[in-house]
């Protein structure tokens, strides 16, 4: 066992961080809110870097890495607040040719679709499999998103679309990638708060010298580290049990029984249980770390924290946008309770 990043993994993180700093500085990111969240040229750069083909085998033109690495890359993208349908575009890489791809579970009623103005296609997960719906087929009504970096539109009737595959493991993968983005968001929010706590002076000293503020920062860091450990562990378990790519459904009840998370879905073999437990665990801790760190980041900025100008709200809102996907936190807690 060596549960530390390898040299290659460290280099991968550094590379993605450099890319984000160079191409997705905060002004650029904020500007993307005005063009539906995605700039095709920048998106193509992400694709060329291999962000979406990370898991595609090398002999098929991909990068050939595993889920642990995908988690590291998405963590860096979250930390830099990179917007766009990142999760769907990675998951879609092996099954469709579109560049900008959304991914949702089929709701019983009307759907809220993210990045409606920029997606080429939408992948829809339901109990019968995964379906591709062409963006041109979607009739979208405007909606006012809470997160400027996650525009959404309403679709009253989601077309069935064309089948692209079984539903095996898709929801777990999406949950894992959302969690990685959120660990990154928790980190970004903590870094912003700590740097403000070092600069801002009141009563003649940096506010970070006051214990109430210092201890809040320490708690932000602790949450983030615990969530990160859970995330990395989940990535390793996914690699050990699923391998990269999208294998055919081995049959039976394994993995998800459709798109909704069955709280009692803890049956099956030992490996399946390990995976569900690790992924749902990472999900809960990452979502909460991002939410709490976003709020603490606002608090530490005082009045500035409540302004549009300071980035604190962007971390928080992105965290909120990522949480209600593929099962509520209560459902994830139920899945794990079934294994205690």
């Amino acid at each position: 066992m060596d549960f530390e990043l390898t040299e290659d993994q460290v280099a991968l993180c550094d590379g993605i961080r450099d890319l984000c700093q160079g191409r997705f500085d905060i002004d650029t990111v904020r500007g993307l809110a005005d063009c539906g969240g995605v700039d095709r040229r920048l998106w193509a750069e992400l694709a060329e870097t291999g962000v979406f083909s990370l898991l595609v085998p090398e002999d098929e033109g991909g990068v050939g890495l595993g889920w642990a690495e995908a988690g590291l890359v998405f963590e860096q993208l979250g930390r830099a607040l990179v917007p766009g349908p990142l999760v769907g575009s990675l998951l879609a890489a092996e099954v469709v040719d579109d560049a900008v791809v959304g991914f949702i579970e089929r709701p019983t009623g009307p759907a809220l679709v993210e990045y409606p103005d920029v997606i080429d296609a939408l992948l829809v997960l339901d109990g019968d499999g995964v379906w591709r719906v062409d963006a041109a087929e979607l009739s979208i009504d405007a909606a006012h998103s809470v997160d400027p970096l996650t525009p959404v539109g309403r679709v009253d009737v989601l077309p069935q679309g064309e089948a692209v595959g079984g539903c095996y493991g898709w929801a777990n993968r999406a949950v894992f990638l959302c969690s990685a983005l959120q660990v990154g968001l928790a980190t970004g929010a903590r870094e912003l708060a700590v740097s403000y706590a070092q600069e801002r002076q009141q009563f003649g000293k940096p506010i970070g010298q006051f214990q109430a503020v210092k201890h809040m920062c320490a708690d932000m860091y602790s949450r983030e580290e615990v969530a990160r450990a859970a995330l990395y562990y989940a990535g390793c378990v996914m690699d050990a049990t699923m391998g990269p790519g999208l294998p055919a459904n081995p049959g039976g009840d394994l993995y998800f029984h459709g798109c909704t998370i069955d709280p009692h879905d803890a049956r099956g073999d030992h490996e399946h249980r390990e995976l569900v437990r690790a992924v749902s665990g990472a999900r809960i801790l990452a979502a909460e770390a991002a939410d709490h760190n976003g709020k603490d980041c606002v608090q530490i900025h005082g009045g500035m924290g409540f302004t549009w100008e300071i980035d604190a709200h962007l971390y928080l809102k992105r965290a909120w946008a990522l949480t209600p996907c593929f099962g509520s936190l209560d459902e994830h807690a139920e899945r794990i309770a079934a294994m205690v």
Partner: protein
Amino acid sequence: MDIRFTADEVAFRDQLRDWLTDVLPTLGDPPDSDDWPARREWDTGWQRMLYDAGYAGINWPSEFGGRGSTPTEHLIFLEETTRMGAPYVGMNFVGQLHAGPTLILEATPEQQARHLPAMLKGEEVWCQGFSEPNAGSDLASLSTRAIRDGNHYVVTGQKIWTSFGHVADYCELLVRTDPDAPKHRGITWLICPMDLPGIEVRPITTVAGSSEFCEVFFDEVRIPVENRVGDENDGWRVAMVTFSFERGTAFISELLGTMNQLADMADVARNICRNGSSAWDDDEIRREFGRLQVEYDALWALTKRVVSQAQRTGMPGPGGSVFKLYYADVKKRMAELAHRLLEREALVFGDEAGDEQTGGDMVASRLYVLSLSIAAGTSEIQRNIIGERILGLPKER
């Protein structure tokens, strides 16, 4: 990142499991928690069995009589022994988990030869004499005075909260050798035999009604200079070495024991019947079980990260402070969950024998968890450490 065990690690684990399967049934019942002579015999007897089987000092280097295992094997050892219900390290804690490792790094060959084999065989029980009535969180302000007199230090003062002080043979003792130097620079780390004339030990009764820690009074106690570890006035640095072990990996068995306890509690919840349904049917209770499991799993993953860092660098990483801070909170939540299940049964101590640290009585455990955010550096102090040393925020003073 690879969480899988190597073939060697698996072989180590299987061999250990076989051994535990053979010896655990021969142990008999653990002693009553207030029968100190019997507890000493139990804890040191287990240490001796580990020694005879080659498992003592699992992570100590082989030149010091240890097994020289990797941090991962140490982790496997703790995981398997806890999982299979082997005795906890108990009063061997200080010797095995921080005094021993400190001696390995800082002591003279003579001191090492004198103490390390005896610690490994369970022949020496150690305690930690750091805290004083007026030096707790601000440990460096300690004032137990040591005055050099020829080949001895003459020590006068008082220590407090000394766990197992009344059963220990030796003490890792911090004393003030230079009262005029800045407070961190006048401290010395001594090996103090607990049977020297002038030492008086008085047990203190805890909130749980037990007495595992003591006050220790020193009245002109003559400690040979050859018992000094590190240089005179360099004791603070040596104490930091001790702390890195105390906060680094010392809580692993606790965490694993807690995970066992959670599973036992879930069985209790499933069997408690209220108004025709089980406590487990209550959404809030069931989900809290799920959440606690998530947090313990994550702390276990964090432990593996800390251990892997230790494997690369030779020292536990700063993740230890995060672990301790977070663990104290989660374990308190678990105690509260237990009490929602017990309802009026929470008024009485259970009669289950067992160590309150690793399982057993939930009522005793509710009291025990209060100490988790105090002992080995309070949670406030851990937050200061994280804020200042990890995040680089300005120091208070």
